[in-house]
């Protein structure tokens, strides 16, 4: 990374935006009055295709460049983000089939395009870093035009599996474009932040699955949100079940339709026809996310023959079933990887372009219990546009940190600050259910980063008096209740049971025969080791007790139990 050209704007004069630099599409956002605004570029696009095209020395980007995939594929560079910071051997050039092909030059991934106006000019060999710099310059230029001031800095989202080489390649590409990189933040957490920054959001301890279904890759992540601190517990990356795969299905479908009417002509064999098919298939897919019917029409698809057809959503969902199920399996596998159960998940955030598809959301709704909140446009009316989640999060983060010195930001994101112990067992207090059973009340949930402080208010016994505050550790396990065998075919999903913590008790519950029964699965807290006991004496009738637990960095636990509204309290410390 070149230190020389790193722009260093003064924190007071920074204009910082959020940037999502995706493999298929990019977005830019800016915070106005504490609200993130996704910026539309000159063409009016908020999802700006990550494509650069050169026609007679003129540079085009975004949707204009994408349209040149039909007429000028050789000088159009697309899907280059994932090549940044990688060597030629490890890249996957599949998606570049219909645009400029990557080549190896000077030890880096490069593209050969004619970017000069002269007719007979030699094609230039541009490294992927140079392409990225040019693209980012255009992207940031659009943002500057919108804001009316020169953008100096940006927070950029990256997938969780970006290597250090990729990160530094991205940073230097930005620096070369004259933009300071304030921070690189991971895409799923940016999406979470976009939801958590809504004014109506309440701070809660949540377990969140972020399903980012993008154009050329899908990433699913399990994020523990504990008091506003986010920890990634598990992540999976997939290059099969993507928006591109859905396009492919539609391309094949319509190609066959065309061939039915025009036997012997396969539009997929001609590059130009294929490019036209792809473009139309993508808009058809988008239309089907909104309406139940979509038309598909291409003029002069192949051999001068126009083609018009329609497709309804049901048919679309049938032919794309494999991909949709792939998404669902992907989500399941990540939850498994995090050693959790679908019952542990409080929220599912659907992000990325393919998340607009209603079927994807409804599949996930079936996977998760009723209590899980699925945040997608088709299931939740107030959901944020899934395509804009990450860039909103990035813009919010940019707004948050733009006032700090670059050195300060570096220090704060250092591993010494970010790597902290997380409690694996929940810590809580014992309460009594009406039937006299001891019930665990979690105060500090699992996977909470320490130091942590939580307070709950628990009612005292009806008559008041002396109260026992028993601080215990707790675990969850999945309790499966098998109903009496029924003859009726179960229509519910047959989810594989995976016990989160404790598998001894219910290991026999998951097998083939249960597929026919409707089983009842629930998350049950189990009381573990007792950590401490304390007594609050003389609580008034109908009084309440505030129990506050603080786990310090050295893992010592401070317990405070206080009668609400009085000065009657006990405090004790468990040294770690």
């Amino acid at each position: 990374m070149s230190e020389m050209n790193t722009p260093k704007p003064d924190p007071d004069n920074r204009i910082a935006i959020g940037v999502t630099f995706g493999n298929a599409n990019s977005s830019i956002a800016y915070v106005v009055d504490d609200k993130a605004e996704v910026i539309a570029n000159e063409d009016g696009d908020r999802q700006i295709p990550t494509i650069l095209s050169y026609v007679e020395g003129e540079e085009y980007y975004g949707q204009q460049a994408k349209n040149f995939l039909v007429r000028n594929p050789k000088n159009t560079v697309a899907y280059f983000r994932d090549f940044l910071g990688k060597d030629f051997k490890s890249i996957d050039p599949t998606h570049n089939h219909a645009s400029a092909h990557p080549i190896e030059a000077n030890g880096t991934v490069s593209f050969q395009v004619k970017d000069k106006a002269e007719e007979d000019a030699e094609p230039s060999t541009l490294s992927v870093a140079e392409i990225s710099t040019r693209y980012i310059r255009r992207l940031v230029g659009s943002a500057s035009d919108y804001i009316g001031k020169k953008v100096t800095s940006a927070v950029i989202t990256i997938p969780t599996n970006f290597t250090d080489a990729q990160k530094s390649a991205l940073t230097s590409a930005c620096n070369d474009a004259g933009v300071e990189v304030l921070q690189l933040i991971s895409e799923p957490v940016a999406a979470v932040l976009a939801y958590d920054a809504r004014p109506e959001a309440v701070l809660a301890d949540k377990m969140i699955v972020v399903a980012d279904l993008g154009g050329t890759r899908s990433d699913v992540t399990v994020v523990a949100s504990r008091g506003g601190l986010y920890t990634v517990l598990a992540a999976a990356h997939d290059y099969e079940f993507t928006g591109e795969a859905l396009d492919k299905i539609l391309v094949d479908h319509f190609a066959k339709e065309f061939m039915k009417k025009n036997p012997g002509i396969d539009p997929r064999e001609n590059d130009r026809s294929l490019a036209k098919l792809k473009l139309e298939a993508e808009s058809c897919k988008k239309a089907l996310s909104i309406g139940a019917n979509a038309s598909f029409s291409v003029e002069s698809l192949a051999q001068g023959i126009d083609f018009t057809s329609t497709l309804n959503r049901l048919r679309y969902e049938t032919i794309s079933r494999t991909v949709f199920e792939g998404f669902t399996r992907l989500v399941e596998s990540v939850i498994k990887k995090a050693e959790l159960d679908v019952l542990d998940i409080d929220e599912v955030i659907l992000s990325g372009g393919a998340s607009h598809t209603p079927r994807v959301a409804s599949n996930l709704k079936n996977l998760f219990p009723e209590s899980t909140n699925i945040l997608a446009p088709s299931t939740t009316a107030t959901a944020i546009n899934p395509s804009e989640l990450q860039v909103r999060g990035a813009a919010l983060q940019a707004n948050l940190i733009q006032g700090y010195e670059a050195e300060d930001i570096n220090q704060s994101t250092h591993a010494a600050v970010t790597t902290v112990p997380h409690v694996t067992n929940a810590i809580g207090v014992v309460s009594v259910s009406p039937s006299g059973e001891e019930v665990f009340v979690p105060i500090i949930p699992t996977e909470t980063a320490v130091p942590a402080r939580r307070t709950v208010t628990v009612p005292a016994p009806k008559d008041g008096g002396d109260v026992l505050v028993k601080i215990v550790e707790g675990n969850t396990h999945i309790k499966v209740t098998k109903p009496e065998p029924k003859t009726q075919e179960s229509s519910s999903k047959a989810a594989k049971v995976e016990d989160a913590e404790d598998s001894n008790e219910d290991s026999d519950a998951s097998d083939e025969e249960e597929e026919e029964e409707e089983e009842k699965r629930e998350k049950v807290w189990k009381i573990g080791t007792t950590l401490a006991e304390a007594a609050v004496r003389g609580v008034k009738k109908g009084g309440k007790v505030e129990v506050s637990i603080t786990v310090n960095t050295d893992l010592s636990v401070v317990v405070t139990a206080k009668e609400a509204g009085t000065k009657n309290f006990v405090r004790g410390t468990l040294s770690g």
Partner: protein
Amino acid sequence: MTTITFPLPSLPQGWAAEKDFKPVDKAIKEATLERTIEPIGPHFLAHARRTRHKRTFSEDDRIQAQERAKKVEVDDDSDISEPEDPMTLALQAKDWKTQDHYKVLGLSKYRWRATEDQIKRAHRKKVLRHHPDKRTSSGKTDDDNFFKCIQKAADVLLDPIKRRQFDSVDEEADVEPPTKKQLAKGGNTFYKLWGNVFKSEARFSNKKPVPHFGDDKSTKEEVEEFYNFWYNFDSWRTFEYLDEDVPDDTENRDQKRHTERKNANARKKKKIEDNARLRKLLDDCLAADERIKRFQKEASAAKNKKRLEREAAEKKAAEEAKAQKEAEEKAAKEAEEKAKADREAGKKAKEAAKNAAKKNKRVLRGSVKDANYFVAGDASAAVIDAVTKDVDLVASKIDTDELAALAGKLNGLKLADEIKSVWKGEVEKLVSAGRVKESELKAFNA
């Protein structure tokens, strides 16, 4: 904070512990896992702050609360509270044109620098204090003159156009150019005082930023930029505020137009006067500016240096040429003198030789006379003549050395025979050498 529905258990009988707290287990230590939290979001910012400053939750809460409290104090009106003097309070509303609006609102230390927000807050504060309803309720007269003044001041100052017009004629904000007495202190006073003058004048500038006056360390470029800026000053200052009221009655149009014309002319005149004033200010400053003098001196020193060097070189060259010429002249003179001396010496030698030859010839002639012309008795004139002729012939045939030798031989000889033998010998020698023919020397062979 979460609220739970199920109640806590009652304290069992016989439960007791020191200070009512009984630690049981320390199991938490084993049950943790190192993970990386994502450095994103406001809560992470708080976490980073706590970790980096090693604060606990309650410490951080307290410090944050204090910081917030400080902000509240800044929002307080402390910056706009000024004591009200009785003169201001006694202002009459009808004289609003002459009142100092900033002073009325208690912003006299800010003047043109006051922000809109400050003006708004100051206005509100004054209104709350001087509202006529409050005055009457506290038993004072219902004189609302000052309240009207406040309203008028806010009217003017909250309208950007009117405020500019007022600021244009706000003499209170002017800084007087320093007097000689003030400048006599020396040091940096000059820069400080003039700097303040131009800082206050800069408020009229259309172009921002206005270059600083600088100090004695400013470079030539900075100083030149400063003066260039000010000599080409682009001012927004207008003098509409001092306009005479235009009568708005429709019955006398001519009167109205006349006043308008008068106002326009007055404005123009004042603008010209103001430009002249600024020009004079600049001239005064420039004249007294030590930096300019220093730069001029430096510039002329640099120029003179060149000239002096050239002159010195020329002088040196001239001197060298002169010295060479003199040396040449001297050498020529010496050569000439030497030649002259040589010539004279030659001449002398020649004359001496001539004299010697004459003398020798005389000796020769004398010798033949002594020998009585080789005849016995008185020699006849013809003999004398013949002998003398022969002697002269011999003398002419021999060179000076031989002549001298011959003369030496003959000198002192008195006897005729001896003389004759010498001559004979000489003649023989000459004849044998072929220089003289025997026949020519008749007398000696006689």
